[in-house]
């Protein structure tokens, strides 16, 4: 049974099988993309970007409030998530080294593996209950919790790539450590840090589950940060499970816009990543 012909035949057979597996993985990808592009382009129009959803039964309308709401949520989440991630990373890379740092790293890894719906529940108990209402702030807090571990770990990696001699040169000139860290270390790692931030934003732009009981969604424009706010992923969700064709149409258009934004962000992240490599 172990003749050369048998072994060669087995080799060819397994190679074919692996190729078939790869094809099977790629088929759903192609199907999903074809659908998003086909349905998205046939449904998208100018109204999509400037109008809010119409009441049930009326055709037309758009997701303008969802687009603005998502942008607002991402902005607020970044205000909280980016500083915590970057300063935490500065601690890990510049001061840390002991078991406390390892504990922080481990917590960040574990935090990034927690289902996002749990983050939503936590934001609900911490902000929605005390503030007695769903709000943009609670939604942004939930998204920030998802951002922090991503920004933290990528920033730490980037800071570690900065050569120690650069820090020592600055310190030797009499620049205090904290200014050295901000003006020399962080600055030379800036493009890499930007990559991490963009990836984190791309990730939270599509998150739905943590917003379900924090930002809640809104049919109209929201006037303050303590009110429920609309978000693109939430609108796609509620339109997709509705029984109306016209809302399905809006959902596909929303999916196209969301996917385009996310790919734009990851392309930008790659651009920064490449610049960093050339810089070195």
């Amino acid at each position, binding site marked *: 049974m172990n003749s050369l012909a048998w072994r060669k035949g087995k080799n060819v057979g397994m190679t074919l099988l692996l190729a078939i597996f790869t094809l099977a993985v790629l088929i759903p990808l192609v*199907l999903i993309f074809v659908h998003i592009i086909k349905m998205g382009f046939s449904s998208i129009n100018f109204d999509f970007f400037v109008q809010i959803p119409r009441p049930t039964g009326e055709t037309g309308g758009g997701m303008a409030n969802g687009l603005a709401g998502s942008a607002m949520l991402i902005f607020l989440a970044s205000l909280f998530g980016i500083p915590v991630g970057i300063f935490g990373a500065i601690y890990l890379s510049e001061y840390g080294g002991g078991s406390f740092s390892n504990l922080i790293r481990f917590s960040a890894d574990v935090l990034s593996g927690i289902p996002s719906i749990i983050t939503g529940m936590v934001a609900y108990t911490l902000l929605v209950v005390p503030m007695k209402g769903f709000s943009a702030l609670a939604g942004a807090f939930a998204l920030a919790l998802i951002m922090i571990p991503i920004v933290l770990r990528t920033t730490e990696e980037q800071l570690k790539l900065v050569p120690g001699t650069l820090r020592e040169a600055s310190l030797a000139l009499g620049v205090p450590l904290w200014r050295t860290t901000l003006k020399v270390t962080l600055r030379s790692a800036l493009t890499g840090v930007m990559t991490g931030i963009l990836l984190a934003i791309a990730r939270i732009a599509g998150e739905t589950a943590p917003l379900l009981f924090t930002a809640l969604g809104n049919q109209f424009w929201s006037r303050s940060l303590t009110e429920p706010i609309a978000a693109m992923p939430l609108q796609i969700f509620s339109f*997709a499970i509705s029984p109306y064709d016209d809302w399905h149409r809006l959902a596909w258009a929303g999916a196209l816009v969301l996917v385009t934004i996310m790919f734009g962000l990851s392309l930008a992240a790659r651009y920064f990543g490449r610049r960093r490599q050339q810089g070195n």
Partner: protein
Amino acid sequence: MAHDKTDLREESVLQQIEPRTWVLKKRLSGDGVFRGITVLFAFSVLAILLMMVAGMWKESLPAFSKFGWRFITGRDWDAVQGSFGALAFIWGSVISSIFALLLATPLSVGTAIFITEIAPKKVGGVVASLVELLAAIPSVIYGLWGVLVMAPWLQRTVEPFLADHLGFLPFFSGAPYGVSMLAAIFILMIMVVPIITSITKEIILAVPQSQKEAAIALGATRWEMIRVAVLPYGKSGILGAVILGLGRAIGETMAVTMVIGNTPQISMSLLAPGYTMPSVIANEFAEASSNLHAAALMEIGLILLVVTLIINILARLLIWSVTRGERRGSAI
């Protein structure tokens, strides 16, 4: 003081320079404040994690004190009567994730091997970035495609076919609904494939070149080389990748909620609708009818949190055991 060879930079910058700056009192205080800020932010990561566990524990206490361990084995889910048991959701989560992984594992490991060992470099690179694209799509968009395209297709073609030809098995009996456990399994499979593939790819790349060359030199065919040199070396790392995929599948919320049918029942048939732990939270938490109802949902969340914590810790340790070996291997 013992000289730590692994962290020379740390030694030189902090242990030697910092004591010298104390002469300049003003600057020392700036450094102290800055250091304090970074410690505070770093600590907040740990605090968030502890707060999550403690907060959910506290919020779920009313349900735990009322139902005790019966909560896990109980089948009732009745908000009106105030009687809650999570078994149907645990069942749904376990069945959908396990079957999704059974389908996804051979596909992803096969794809990873194809990318790294078989395909020409350019083809492999294209396939790898396509798979990464698949990982970047938000789950609500998988759900949109699942509920509007895949579920109707399952209802029209796949499910009647299974019922006709394999209907004598309890797993494929009953009417085709489209939205069903089977739909959830398929959508989860599509979603975990990119994760397992990309980690397995890293693991396979960590296999020392010398091992593979040795197998080839002994006259192995390419498949035999993969079987005797690549797979055994990466075994525990690949297992870690699969477990990480399991963590993702169990916690996946939106896509599953949109296609599983959201019916709290324990059915042997994969064609019947089901319910999972994250789905019931997503559907009912915002409008929980009573404090007990909210606490019961919190307890489901707590179970989910503990399970995913254990899964993640296990997976990280396994993957770490292989990728750490990579550094040792290349040093030789």
